[in-house]
C-alpha cells in the first residue's frame, strides 16, 4: 500500500496560541484516517493546512507527491473538503450546487452531467434534486455538502466532523455512505464521536492540545491503554496528554 499523505513536523502558531506543535503522521492510500480530539485539539487546523486554507508556520505535508508549501495548486486539484459547517449555495437547487462545483473544477458539460447523476444516485438525492438547498434539513444539506466535495473526483477527501449535529438516523445513513465511498478515495476524518471513529477508521490519531499523543488502529489504541473501549482508550490518552502538556 502506498502513502497518500506524509505530514512532517507541521506547526501552526497564531498570535496568542500555538494550535499545532510539530506533528508528523502518514496516511496510506485507500484508507480512512481519523483525527480524534476534544475541542481546540488542533484537528480542524490540521485539515485547514492540508487543504491550503491555512499556511503552516513550519513543516510541510506531501499529498500524493505534491508539497502543500510549493505545489498547492496541484494539491487543490486532487483533494477536496467537506467543511464542518454546511457549505452550500442556498438559493441554488441540489442539482445546480453539484453542477456548479463540477464546473469550478473544470469539468466539461458531459462529465458534469455524468458525475452529477452519479452523486445524486450515490447519496439518494433524487427526491430533493430540484429543491433549493436552503429548504433542506440538516441531514440532507450535509449529504449534499459531502457530494459536492466528492463530485470533483478527489484522490483525498477531508471530512471535518461530517455528522456533527445530526440525529442518529441521519448519522447512520452518512456512515453507510462513507463506507461506500472509502473504496474510491483516501479519507481524512475529524470527529468527536468514538463510535463513528471506531466504525469508519482504519487508523486513528488522538490529538491533545496541538500534539498527536497516539496513532494506531482502534484495536491497537485499546491494547496500548489496556482498555476495552475506544472511548476509555481516548480518555486515558487525552488525560495523559493533558498531564504532559501541563493542563
Amino acid at each position: 500500500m502506498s502513502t497518500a499523505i506524509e505530514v512532517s513536523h507541521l506547526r501552526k502558531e497564531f498570535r496568542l496560541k500555538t494550535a499545532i506543535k510539530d506533528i508528523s503522521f502518514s496516511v496510506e492510500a485507500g484508507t480512512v484516517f481519523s483525527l480524534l480530539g476534544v475541542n481546540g485539539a488542533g484537528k480542524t487546523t490540521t485539515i485547514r493546512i492540508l487543504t491550503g486554507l491555512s499556511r503552516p508556520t513550519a513543516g510541510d505535508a506531501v499529498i500524493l507527491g505534491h508539497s502543500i508549501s510549493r505545489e498547492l495548486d496541484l494539491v487543490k486539484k486532487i483533494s477536496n473538503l467537506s467543511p464542518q459547517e454546511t457549505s452550500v449555495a442556498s438559493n441554488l437547487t441540489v442539482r445546480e450546487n453539484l453542477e456548479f462545483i463540477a464546473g469550478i473544477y473544470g469539468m466539461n458539460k458531459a462529465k458534469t452531467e455524468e458525475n452529477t447523476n452519479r452523486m445524486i444516485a450515490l447519496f439518494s438525492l433524487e427526491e430533493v434534486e430540484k429543491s433549493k438547498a436552503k429548504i433542506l434539513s440538516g441531514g440532507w444539506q450535509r449529504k449534499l455538502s459531502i457530494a459536492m466535495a466528492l463530485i470533483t473526483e478527489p484522490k483525498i477527501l477531508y471530512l471535518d466532523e461530517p455528522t456533527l449535529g445530526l440525529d442518529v438516523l441521519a448519522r447512520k445513513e452518512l456512515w453507510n455512505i462513507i463506507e461506500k465511498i472509502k473504496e474510491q478515495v483516501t479519507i481524512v476524518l475529524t470527529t468527536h464521536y468514538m463510535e463513528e471513529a471506531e466504525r469508519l477508521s482504519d487508523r486513528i490519531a488522538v490529538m491533545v492540545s496541538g500534539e498527536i499523543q497516539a496513532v494506531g488502529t482502534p484495536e491497537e489504541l485499546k491494547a496500548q491503554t489496556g482498555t476495552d473501549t475506544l472511548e476509555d482508550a481516548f480518555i486515558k490518552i487525552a488525560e495523559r496528554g493533558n498531564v504532559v502538556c501541563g493542563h
Partner: protein
Amino acid sequence: MRALIFSKRTWKEIMRDPLSYIFCLGFPVVMLFIMTAVNKNIPEEAGMHLFEIQSLAPGIAVFGLSFVMLFACIQVSKDRSTAFLLRLYVSPMKPSDFISGYTLPMLWTAFLQEIITFFVSIMIGFTADVSFQPIRLILCLAALIPAGLLFIGFGLLFGSLLSEKAAPGICSVVISVVCFLGGIWMDVDSLGGTLAKICHVLPFYHAVHAARIVLSGDFGDAGTSIFVLLLYSVLIFLLAAFVLREKIQKDLR
C-alpha cells in the same frame, strides 16, 4: 471560465431573491411614477424642472444603481459569513475569479435596471408629450457605465470589510447621501456655499449631472463630470478589488 461559472451562480442567487425585484427593479419604477405625480402638482410659476421626466429619469437611474451597491454588498458579506467560501477557497479558484464573478452579474443587473427605468420613462414621456432621442438615450446609458462600476465597487468594498449585519446599514447611509448630495431630489447647483462644494467633490453629483446633460443633448460641461466620475469609479473599484483580494488572502493565512 471559473469566473463565468461563479458569476452565473451569483446571478442565480440575486434573481432568486424577491428583494432584488422589489429594490433593484421595482423601487426605481415606483419612484418614477410617484415623482411624476408630484411634478404634476408643482405650479408652473415655481420654475421647478427637476421632476420633469427628462430630468427625473437620469436621476432615478443613478438612484437605482445605488441599490445595486446594496445587493453587491449583501451578496459578498453573506458569502463571507457562511462556510460556502471555504469550499471555494480549497478549489482552484483565484482571487481574480471571485472579483469578476461578483462584478459581472452586478453589471448585468445594473444594465437591466437602466433599460427598465428608461423604458418606463419613455412611456411616461408619451403621456406628457415628451420624447427621448434614441441616440441620446444610448449615450446616457454609456455615461452611466462608470456610475455602475462606482456603485458595484462600493458594494464589493463594504461587503468585504463589514459583516452581514453592518454592511446594509452603511449602504443605506450611502444611498441617503446619493439622494441628497447627488442632486436627485434637489437642485444642487442653486444651493451654493459649502454644501454645494461638498456635492461637487463627491462623485454622486457628477454621476447624475453627466447623465442629465447627455440626455438633454447639451453636452456643455459633461466632460468634466464624466472625468471626475471615471476617476472615482476606477479608484473605488481598484480599492474594492484590492480589499477583497486581501480579505481572501487573509482568510487563507
